[in-house]
């Protein structure tokens, strides 16, 4: 297959009017016809739960699936800091344009203008919807909603619910979903894992799942499939993602013809609790909102091993404030993370391992009082204390970057439809709105925008424009795909080797973190590709998965997911190698400014890299979607 230019189907007209134009002209489905269509929603995080609830309200029959025992437990539940919207309630100059502009700039000009503008427009409706559901956002004494500022923005536009915004938003969406379960319009199927996509006559018409309690395979038929399965940060083994977060559903769709876009764009979050030992199973994020009041520093000299309280001001280096006087501690995530890595690489890291920097609240506590700090961040401080055994009211926190979010994902057009007709992708699973770096508080916004406000229209347009010949479970395509899925599972169990899934996953994670992580170079990426290939072949010869296929078997689930990560990891390295520039979270050491900032190459790389599976994991085909910027002027990002 040769390179083709991808069409994103962006509506005509000026940027500000594109979405309205779409709404005015898209085809509608007659309310009585909606109930004749079954929509399969895979995943019930913010994107999936909001989509399932909204589509059911409109009259579609919805079947929703998730891995956990309840829809309420999706990874979205763990989001802490907040959700952006351009309400400008505080009259600090915010607007849809500014939210749009900040998001495009924050993404280092690698996102699609039209999508981001729509996202900024919809942001305000999300807040209205969630408040109406009873989401208890933070409020001022006057009873109105409160905001805070987040990295990469100079206005206060982040709505928050203590340090557990994701929990409250997800519970709102989950309750809306349960409301539609009660109404008989959603069938909720928890403890089910989608293992493959069924394509009939060129359209996505169903999925094969494995019932995680009984091990049985199930065939589900629908007129469209919505993939809302989250991000793939767990390819690094250690990340802030929940343990069940995985790429399997997206990867299986890639193998069935959906393109995978910008897989190398990974976000490393600057404020996480540092790794403490090899047994570590995941990393814990400390919300970036902490950077509003905490000051980041390391000793000026690497030899300075005094406890932090004994290091006088003169011997401290508040390196973010020093290098970026106008944004200071609030620079975007990629900039904050890379700077932490560079002071650690210089030997100035702190703590037992030397792989950490301080985040210090002493000044804020002096200025605002302990009570105020406790009210703002109490639960985060408690979490830190539980994990580390240290009290951040008294000693500075130790933090270090960790893998947090994946901007890459399945390629979708303006309709959120992948290259497989009828397969839509929402939330973190798609690549759409964040370019090469996501700003804080904008993933929740995107997931809910996709799920509550975009998909109902774009799916309707698809349904109205297409015909759906009767397909049922006994269709041969279903039998064939189920056979593929069960053979894979049986193969995993049949290897009966020596090494556990966990051991393979850790090894893969180390390769990814060292060579496809915070900073990358040609040589490292080339060797990562070879190492991953080697590890993958060892996996299929030497894996040991205990237990039976027909029972609850967590290890077997994880084995299938790690098998897919072992393929995805290679694609990420291939993509990172091909992109010979630095942008956002993708930092190629060969391409940097004299000041060590990411150096883009807009002439050659202002495109979305969408990879198509070729049948051979090591030689995917690249398709490009050129990025055109009509309204935003591309500049070298500067947060000085």
């Amino acid at each position, binding site marked *: 297959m040769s390179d083709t230019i991808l069409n994103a189907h962006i509506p005509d007209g000026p940027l500000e009017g594109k979405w309205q134009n779409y709404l005015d002209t898209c085809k509608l489905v007659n309310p009585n016809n909606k109930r004749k269509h079954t929509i399969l929603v895979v995943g019930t995080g913010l994107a999936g739960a909001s989509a399932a609830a909204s589509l059911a309200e409109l009259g579609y029959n919805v079947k929703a699936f998730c891995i956990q025992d309840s829809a309420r437990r999706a990874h979205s539940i763990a989001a802490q800091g907040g959700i952006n919207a351009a309400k400008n309630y505080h009259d600090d100059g915010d607007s849809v344009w500014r939210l749009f502009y900040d998001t495009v700039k924050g993404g280092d000009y690698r996102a699609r203008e039209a999508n981001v503008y729509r996202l900024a427009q919809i942001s305000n409706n999300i807040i209205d*919807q969630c408040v109406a559901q009873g989401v208890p956002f933070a409020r001022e004494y006057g009873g109105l909603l409160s905001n805070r500022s987040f990295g990469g923005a100079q206005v206060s536009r982040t709505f928050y619910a203590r340090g557990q915004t994701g929990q409250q938003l997800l519970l709102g969406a989950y309750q809306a979903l349960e409301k539609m379960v009660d109404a008989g319009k959603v069938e909720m199927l928890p403890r089910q894992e989608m293992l493959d996509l069924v394509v009939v006559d060129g359209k996505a018409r169903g999925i094969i799942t494995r019932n995680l309690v009984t091990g049985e395979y199930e065939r589900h038929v629908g007129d469209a499939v919505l993939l809302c399965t989250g991000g793939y940060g767990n390819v690094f083994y250690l990340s802030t993602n929940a343990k069940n977060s995985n790429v399997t559903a997206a990867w299986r769709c890639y193998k069935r013809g959906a393109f995978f876009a910008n897989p190398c764009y990974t976000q490393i979050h600057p404020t996480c609790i540092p790794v403490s030992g090899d047994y570590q199973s995941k990393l814990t994020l400390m919300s970036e909102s902490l950077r509003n009041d905490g000051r980041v520093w390391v000793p000026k000299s690497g030899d300075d091993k005094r406890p932090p309280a004994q290091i006088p001001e003169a011997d401290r280096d508040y390196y973010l404030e020093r290098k970026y006087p106008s944004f200071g501690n609030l620079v975007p995530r990629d900039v904050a993370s890379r700077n932490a890595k560079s002071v650690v690489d210089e030997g100035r890291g702190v703590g037992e391992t030397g792989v950490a920097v301080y985040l210090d609240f002493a000044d804020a506590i002096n200025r605002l009082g302990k009570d105020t700090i406790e009210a703002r961040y109490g639960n985060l401080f408690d979490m830190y204390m539980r994990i580390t055994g240290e009290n951040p009211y008294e000693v500075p926190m130790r933090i270090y970057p960790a893998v947090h979010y994946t901007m890459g994902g399945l390629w979708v057009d303006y309709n959120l439809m992948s290259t497989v007709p009828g397969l839509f992708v929402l939330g973190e699973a798609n690549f759409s709105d964040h370019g090469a770096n996501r700003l804080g508080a904008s993933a929740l916004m995107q997931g809910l925008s996709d799920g509550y406000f975009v998909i109902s229209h774009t799916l309707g347009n698809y349904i109205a424009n297409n015909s759906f010949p009767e397909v049922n479970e006994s269709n041969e395509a279903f039998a064939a795909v189920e056979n593929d899925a069960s053979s894979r599972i049986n193969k995993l169990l049949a290897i009966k080797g020596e090494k556990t899934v966990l051991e393979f996953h850790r090894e893969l994670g180390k390769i990814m973190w060292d060579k496809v992580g915070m900073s990358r170079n040609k040589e490292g990426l080339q060797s990562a590709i070879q190492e991953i290939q080697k590890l993958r072949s060892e996996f299929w010869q030497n894996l040991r998965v205990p237990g039976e296929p027909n029972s609850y078997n967590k290890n077997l689930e994880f084995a299938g997911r790690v098998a897919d990560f072992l393929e995805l990891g290679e694609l990420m390295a291939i993509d990172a190698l091909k992109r010979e520039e630095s942008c956002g979270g993708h930092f190629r050491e060969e391409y940097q400014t004299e000041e060590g900032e990411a150096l883009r190459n807009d002439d050659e790389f202002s495109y979305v890299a969408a990879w198509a599976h070729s049948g051979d994991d090591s030689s995917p085909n690249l398709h490009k979607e050129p990025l055109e910027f009509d309204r935003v002027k591309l500049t070298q990002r500067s947060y000085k």
Partner: protein
Amino acid sequence: MKLHLKVWRQNGPHEEGKLVPYQVEANPHMSFLEMMDVLNEQLIKAGEDPVEFDHDCREGICGSCNMVINGVPHGPLKGTATCQLHMRHYKDGDTVVVEPWRAEAFPVIRDLVVDRAAFDRIIAAGGYVSVDTGSAPDANAIPIEKNKAEMAFDYATCIGCGACVAACPNASASLFTASKIAHLSLLPQGNAERKTRVLRMVEQMEKEGFGDCSNHGACEAACPKEIPIDAIAIMRREYVKAALS
């Protein structure tokens, strides 16, 4: 540190289970679940089946993890879910008994994994505000007193783990159900459906086979989110008001 574990093993809902002794080498920085990971790696290497347990976020917010540790749901630390418990609270030579939630309404699926679907059905019976997507007024149209919002929030933090049921001598789901009722009844948004909500949710709770509340207070003590037991008083008040009108 060396620990002597006794872990509940049960192959399926209808099979008999028993406590099985294991020894494991742990380190004080590990979380409790990481210690269980070490045990499982050990078992797999020895050709045995690992212990099944639910977990996901490992940071105390998803409500997946559910272990009764030495007889206490989520273990000894107040306001802490199993996944947030660290081994620094144990010492060399300790014996630790690990069991699943036990309640008729939470049947065991395998080992420490139980079926908590009853909770979803309780929420489906009215634990929401019926507002269809796109029909909401401007978010600042309804100011809400800060104190009230904060109070509602305290109840809204329930993670749906089920420790309250596991701790209760009657296996009552009152704290879980009441936390949602209290959250929504304290806010103006929840007003319109106030009566039907409490009547239906309480009815569903009874239908699921959870026991009655006798004000024991064990639920509040076990709750990893420290949901105040006042929630149950609010639920009762709401129920009486709704039933009488």
